[in-house]
């Protein structure tokens, strides 16, 4: 009876059939926890530890320098760059564009820096479904290794104003 006040002693011993479930549920919860540190040790997909504070101007300067150095063409007015895996790669989000377009090599590892020039954006690698937040003032460094080749897109998946759904960038992997 859950709506009446309780009189007398109600803290009784737990029934064995309830105890079984309590024990197994607790064990499962511990496994749920253990998976996360374990995956950091053994797994290949983990959120990065590496972030820095930055400003829109500082980050823009880095993108510009990289474009100067590694530009190989242009697509729809956005520079296409083919960066060297040894160097840091920069991509910025702004209303409502991702820039530059990246040309990467399968199996190579890149340090990809992400930041926003204005509002909060979401980096969603489409259709692979790999998602990270891109915040103004933060430089988020993802160390990525493309394991598949083809054309991939960067869809903004955090609402960033009326042009949000038009904010799509591109990453080519060969």
């Amino acid at each position: 009876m859950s709506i009446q006040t309780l009189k007398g002693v109600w803290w009784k011993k737990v029934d064995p059939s309830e105890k079984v479930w309590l024990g197994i549920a607790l064990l499962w919860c511990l496994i749920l926890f253990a998976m996360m540190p374990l995956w950091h040790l053994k797994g290949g997909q983990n959120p990065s530890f590496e972030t820095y504070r930055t400003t829109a101007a500082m980050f823009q300067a880095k993108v510009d320098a990289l474009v100067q150095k590694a530009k190989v063409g242009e697509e729809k007015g956005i520079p296409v760059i083919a960066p060297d895996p040894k160097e840091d790669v920069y991509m910025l989000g702004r209303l409502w564009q991702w820039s530059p377009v990246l040309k990467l090599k399968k199996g190579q590892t890149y340090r990809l820096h992400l930041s926003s020039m204005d509002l909060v954006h979401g980096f969603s690698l489409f259709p692979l479904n790999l998602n990270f937040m891109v915040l103004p003032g933060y430089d988020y460094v993802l160390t990525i290794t493309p394991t598949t080749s083809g054309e991939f897109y960067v869809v903004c998946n955090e609402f960033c104003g009326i042009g949000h759904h038009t904010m799509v960038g591109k990453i080519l992997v060969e």
Partner: protein
Amino acid sequence: MAAVFRTCAHTGLKVHNQAERLIKVHAVAGVLSILFGGIAALLVLLTRWPAVHLLDPTNYYRALTFHGMNMLIFWIIFFEIAILYFAGPILLGSRVAWPRIGWVGFALMAAGSILIDVAILQGGADVMFTSYVPMRAVSHFYLGWILFAVGALLGVCNFFATLVVARAERTYEGSISLVTFGGATAAIIALVTLAHGAIIYIPTWLWSMGYVQNIDAGMYRLVFWGLGHPSQQINVTAMVAVWYLLATLTVGAIPVNEKVCRTAFLLYILFINLASAHHLLVDPQLSPAWKVWNTSYGMYLAVLASMVHGMTVPASVEVAQRRKGLSKGLFEWLAKAPWGNPSFAALVLSITLFGFMGGITGVTFGAEQVNIISHNTLRIPGHFHSTVVAGTTLAFMGLTYYVVPLIWRRAVVWPRLATFQAYAFGLGIMIFAGGMTTAGSYAVPRRHWDVQFANSIFQPPVEPAAYLFLGVMGIGGLLAVLGGALYVVITVVSVFFGKRIPDVAGAVPLAAVPQDTGKHTPISGTLVLVFVFLAAFIIYYFLNWKWLSDIWLVK
């Protein structure tokens, strides 16, 4: 002014007239909110369904902001405050400690919600209910939040004050009831949450008027989700309290062990993730170590609490049914349950969908790394429509069918339609959320006007399967909207035109609590059900790690 009481002929409870009036106004405001939010739901649904694609972008983002605010904030919180006025004063047979403060709180909440709705409809706040800075809305949008939060805070304080008064005036003997206890845990979490709301919205309000220069986007998200996440835990806690209440009213349920149930409620307070980590798992401002710790506190004891209630609530039903003689085999108690009672249907669907869909997806997407393949895709709204809609909202709907006869003292008109309503809403949301979650696993983003990317410079190819599941979402959503509309219609018509219920015992059929036979009653049926649940959980959880391992390497 002396408090005026009546004694309820059906339950024998002593009812303070102020408690009753406060319940009524909060419930009315809640039903109005779900009406507004529901209209927006239909518009948003028909826009996300590619075959229809109804609204233009501006109106879609506006309707979505309006939907989130009216549903998640207004409908749910108004109803929760109403529940507190029931679980406190009425269940303890006490007066409301501060009736005036209760009315002031209500007025603030009403004013806040009106300010916010006006701001959105004026086009001054197309920012979603999360309003992440530096995106800016008109200042009365933020002021509305502050008023609403302070109003709700007064309601919560009034509940605590009533507990003190009831104890001091000895209106009850022994320990408070399980439902009051659940209400109290929800109220404690609400205090923390509403404090966060004030902390983040006061500077943001000042910023919106130009008095504060800069608010860090990462800090805003951290503190905002300090409000947003625990407030989901209020919903869970309040929902579980309503589960116990509905189980009692519909089948005379008997908790197997009150100690277990109450300890599980306490775990919610101690282990909800105060730091709101699971919204921030792929954010740059926090380190993975912080995320892993704060999303679980090492052992996910809040998840454990839900797994315990998921067992104890059905077990309390099983015990009651078996004591009534329905004890053949594993499931006679369930097969011969009152399936035609709308509140019982709502209870069963709420528990099942919350557990199997909302709970499993929530814990899985809340694992730090699995979040990489879920964050901000349609998997997320798919998940929370199974928790706060199929779980909390449906439980509150089931409760309404008792609030109308017991508080308004009017019969529910069209009881069979009410039963249909509960099933339509529950099954509709099940199909809707299933379609949405699956579409999200093809990376379809949430809060996005254009699934086909027709207006962007690049057109990523979208899997045909994604369209299929968006269609499933659309059809399930229509059924849910029908169920939601029927809820509003049945409730409003009953309150105004329902037959008056005479004050004689038995006029409102309430389940009798079966006698304790002194013999041990088995809960074997429930145990089978919870192990089926665990198996589903394990399979879904590890499938997601498998999917995760298929994407690019990232660290």
